[in-house]
């Protein structure tokens, strides 16, 4: 049986080989797409297998490659934490690869398939390498490979201005983040005491003893970098621009998986490298997590571009993951390993869950886009009749992300709530008072998310078609796309009803990082009951909820169908008015109006109503125009001033160069004299 690291290596090599060979496959155009993406799926599957094996065994394997810097060859290491993220990446990679076979065909003939395959595989390989890397240099190479590949994928439809703008913004923020991570490594390496290149290995960083100031510098530099990638507010502005414009299979990967690599990075830095840290680090993470969660979902509610909305939900979910991480760090700082383990498991579980349901939702959005060619929800409606497969699968995603039992999103959010409920164990009085308020915010987030997805599903799939084109031209998507979504939906359900197994499986991670196991208490009453700390404290049973609901529904249905009753289909009741048109339905903007009114102060909302009088009867309104513009306040608060400042400085710097040669000579002269006076 091959070692797990070998399997992971095989996955990466297969992907890299695909990237290199993609141009050669061009000659066999008919099988280019199926072949490439099937192989991508195989590689993803290999990564999943390697990850599952590693996590289950709790094993650590490392290797060194013969390439890299002199004195610093590329180091690889596969430990349970890395293994877990391999599974996350691999699972979504698998689903999306299958889905892509059908999806990418939609671009056939118009765009370069080679480009898509090449960057797709590089993107996947980059993500796998990020979690496998075991030295600073290799990590950054992989990190930027991932960023660059996804940048080109965001640019795939590069003739559109919004794609170019989004890609640029994305790459810029990602690169600034990468530089911050680089500096964090610099701090770790510089303070580790190791000489030369040895300090850049993760092993040296694990054993480094940093003073508290340097440790904080390292952690927060890294956190900044990772937060920029994860889209934590206020570094999120690129995310709702880039994710919507990318091809949907890429959006699924970006939102579902790429963001998670930064969660990996934060875990690595906090729990693996630094290990001992003050509680306020966790406090900062928790606070930012809460802000991201609440603001993310609120912004999402205001969107009517389907993919943009989903992108904002990624901000929200990253926030939820960070809440778990922050709690875990706080517990760890107060030496409460069991509680830290619970919060960490909650965070990791949500990482996995979000990857899958967000992947599913983006795939669904892609299917809708594929079928209707619009992203604006205001022009959709009633798709459940035209897309009988996509609708229920998308619904599974909606229910999961709304944290409703028995699907997976609920389990991880419930675990996070449990972690919150245990915060009174903290010996810090202020924290005891403040942290429960976080739980309230999390509850708000969950409820708003549900509201948002009622809107999404209701407006997109239910009701009647609102668009301009004929709805008859909309067709269900092909089998591979349905297959990818189906697999993801099944995973959502399984992860929701079998949490005890999952927690038992990933238990090696908290054991290694927090020094405590969860499975002994979590599975004490058997696989059926999830009891995170003790069954007296709290418990949940996914299977019972699922089977219970199923049973009651089935019995009720049967009982009510013993006697045949007639069901008569009639036109929609129009309250006696005539000419009820689909345009009279509630729209996405209308749906979110109450919340917009209540929480509007958080956005820059501009509403305009313009009444054009009737031509014949000026007293009567002829038509009414309603304009709504909602903008992210952070843009004006944080980014626009920075851009302006940069250009201001650039203008001032430009004054140096006036074009007159005398002035230039004077610079030279003055430089010389200044140097001579002060230094010579």
């Amino acid at each position, binding site marked *: 049986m091959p070692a797990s690291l070998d399997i992971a290596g095989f996955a990466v090599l297969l992907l890299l080989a695909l990237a290199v060979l993609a141009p050669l496959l061009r000659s066999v155009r008919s099988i280019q797409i199926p072949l490439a993406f099937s192989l991508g799926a195989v590689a993803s599957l290999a990564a999943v297998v390697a990850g599952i094996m590693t996590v289950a065994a709790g094993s650590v394997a490392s290797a060194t490659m013969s390439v890299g810097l002199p004195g610093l060859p590329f180091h690889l290491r596969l430990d349970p934490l890395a293994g877990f993220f391999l599974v996350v990446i691999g699972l979504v990679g698998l689903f999306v690869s299958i889905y892509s076979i059908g999806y990418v065909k939609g671009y056939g003939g118009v765009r370069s398939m080679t480009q898509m395959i090449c960057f797709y595989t590089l993107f996947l390989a980059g993500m796998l390498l990020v979690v496998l890397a075991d030295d600073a240099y290799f990590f950054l190479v992989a990190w930027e490979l991932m960023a660059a590949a996804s940048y080109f994928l965001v640019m795939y439809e590069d003739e559109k201005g919004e794609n170019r703008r989004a890609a640029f913004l994305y790459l810029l923020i990602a690169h600034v983040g990468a530089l911050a991570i680089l500096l964090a490594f610099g701090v770790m390496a510089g303070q580790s005491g190791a000489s030369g290149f040895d300090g850049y290995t993760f092993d040296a960083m694990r054993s480094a003893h940093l003073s508290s100031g340097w440790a904080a510098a390292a952690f927060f530099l890294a956190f900044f970098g990772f937060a920029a990638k994860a889209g934590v507010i206020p570094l999120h502005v690129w995310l709702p621009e880039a994710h919507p414009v990318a091809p949907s299979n890429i959006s699924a990967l970006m939102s579902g998986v790429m963001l998670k690599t930064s969660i990996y990075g934060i875990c690595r830095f906090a729990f693996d490298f630094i290990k001992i840290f003050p509680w306020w680090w966790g406090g900062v993470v928790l606070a930012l997590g809460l802000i991201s969660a609440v603001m993310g979902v609120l912004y999402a509610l205001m969107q009517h571009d389907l993919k943009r909305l989903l992108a904002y939900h990624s901000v929200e979910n990253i926030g939820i993951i960070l809440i778990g991480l922050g709690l875990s760090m706080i517990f760890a700082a107060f030496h409460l390993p069991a509680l830290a383990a619970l919060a960490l498991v909650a965070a990791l579980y949500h990482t996995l869950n979000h990857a899958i349901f967000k992947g599913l939702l983006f795939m669904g959005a892609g299917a809708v886009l594929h079928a209707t060619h619009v992203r604006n929800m205001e022009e959709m409606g009633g798709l459940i009749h035209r897309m009988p497969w996509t609708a229920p699968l998308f619904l599974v995603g909606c229910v999961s992300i709304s944290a409703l039992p028995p699907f997976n999103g609920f389990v991880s959010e419930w675990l996070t709530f449990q972690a919150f409920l245990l915060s009174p164990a903290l010996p810090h009085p202020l924290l005891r008072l403040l942290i429960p308020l976080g739980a309230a915010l999390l509850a708000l987030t969950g409820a708003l998310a549900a509201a948002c997805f009622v809107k999404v599903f209701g407006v997109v799939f239910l009701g009647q078609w609102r668009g301009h084109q004929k709805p008859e031209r909309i067709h269900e998507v092909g089998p591979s796309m349905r297959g990818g979504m189906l697999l993801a939906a099944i995973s959502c359900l399984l992860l929701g009803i079998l949490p005890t197994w999952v927690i038992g499986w990933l238990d090696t991670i908290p054991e290694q990082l927090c020094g405590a196991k969860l499975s002994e208490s979590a599975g004490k009453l058997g696989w059926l009951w999830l009891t995170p700390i003790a069954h007296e404290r709290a418990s949940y049973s996914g299977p019972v909820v699922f089977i219970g609901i199923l049973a009651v529904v089935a019995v009720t249905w049967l009982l009510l169908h013993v006697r045949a009753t007639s069901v008569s289909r009639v036109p929609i009741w129009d309250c006696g008015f005539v000419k009820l048109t689909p345009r009279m339905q509630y729209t996405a903007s209308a749906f979110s109006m109450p919340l917009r009114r209540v929480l509007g102060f958080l956005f820059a909302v501009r509403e305009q109503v313009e009444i054009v009088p009737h031509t014949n009867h000026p007293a009567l309104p002829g038509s009414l125009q309603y304009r709504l513009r909602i903008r992210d306040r952070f843009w004006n608060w944080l980014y626009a001033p920075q851009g302006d400042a940069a250009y201001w400085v650039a203008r001032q*710097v*430009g*004054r*140096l*160069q*006036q*074009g*007159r*040669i*005398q002035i230039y*000579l*004077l610079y*030279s*002269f003055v430089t010389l*004299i200044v140097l*001579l006076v002060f230094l*010579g």
Partner: protein
Amino acid sequence: MTHTFAVQLNSLLAALILLTAFALLAQRKILGLVHIFAWQGFFLALSTAVIGYASGEHHLYISSLLTLVMKVILLPYILYTLVRKLKVHRDIDAVVNIPTTMLLGIMLVVFSYHLTAPIRELSNLMTRSTLAVALATVMLGMLMMVTRRHAVTQILGFLAMENGLFFAATSATYGMPMVVELGVALDLLIAAFIFGIFFFHISTTFESLDVEQMAKLKETD
């Protein structure tokens, strides 16, 4: 010629070189500038020969000859011809007025003196005190380039700097190694060739040799 006399003579020549450097700053007529430059070269050649004689470093004679040929005959001739051919007879406008320039020049001399003080301490050559003059000449040449806006004056400032450098080499170390001296002379020759071409290009393209016109490439709006 006794050793002390040679030193005195050299000091006198150094003073004359400094004087010509100031004269270059003060002169408004282009042809006048060329003449002064030729004089400066002449004093420089003389000084080199004197030092060569007094120190017994005979390779300095070659340097002296080279200077004479290059800076007294060849370069002034080229400049003279060019100025004639391009018909630039006007007075030259200075960016900063001349009295101010002179004042700045004096400050530069003082500064050079201050700067070369430690070297004077170290050196045991008879020419050590003239190093300050050499540096001052370099700086004055540069000042001239900064304050004048005519292409020919810029070149003259540049050449005056070159003179200063040459003088510095002689006074600090009795000249650079021969290969260097020759190389520098070669470079100077090529430079002369090039600025000759440039004068033509500039005057045909811009219809005057005022460098103020050449300010299209800039970063300001």
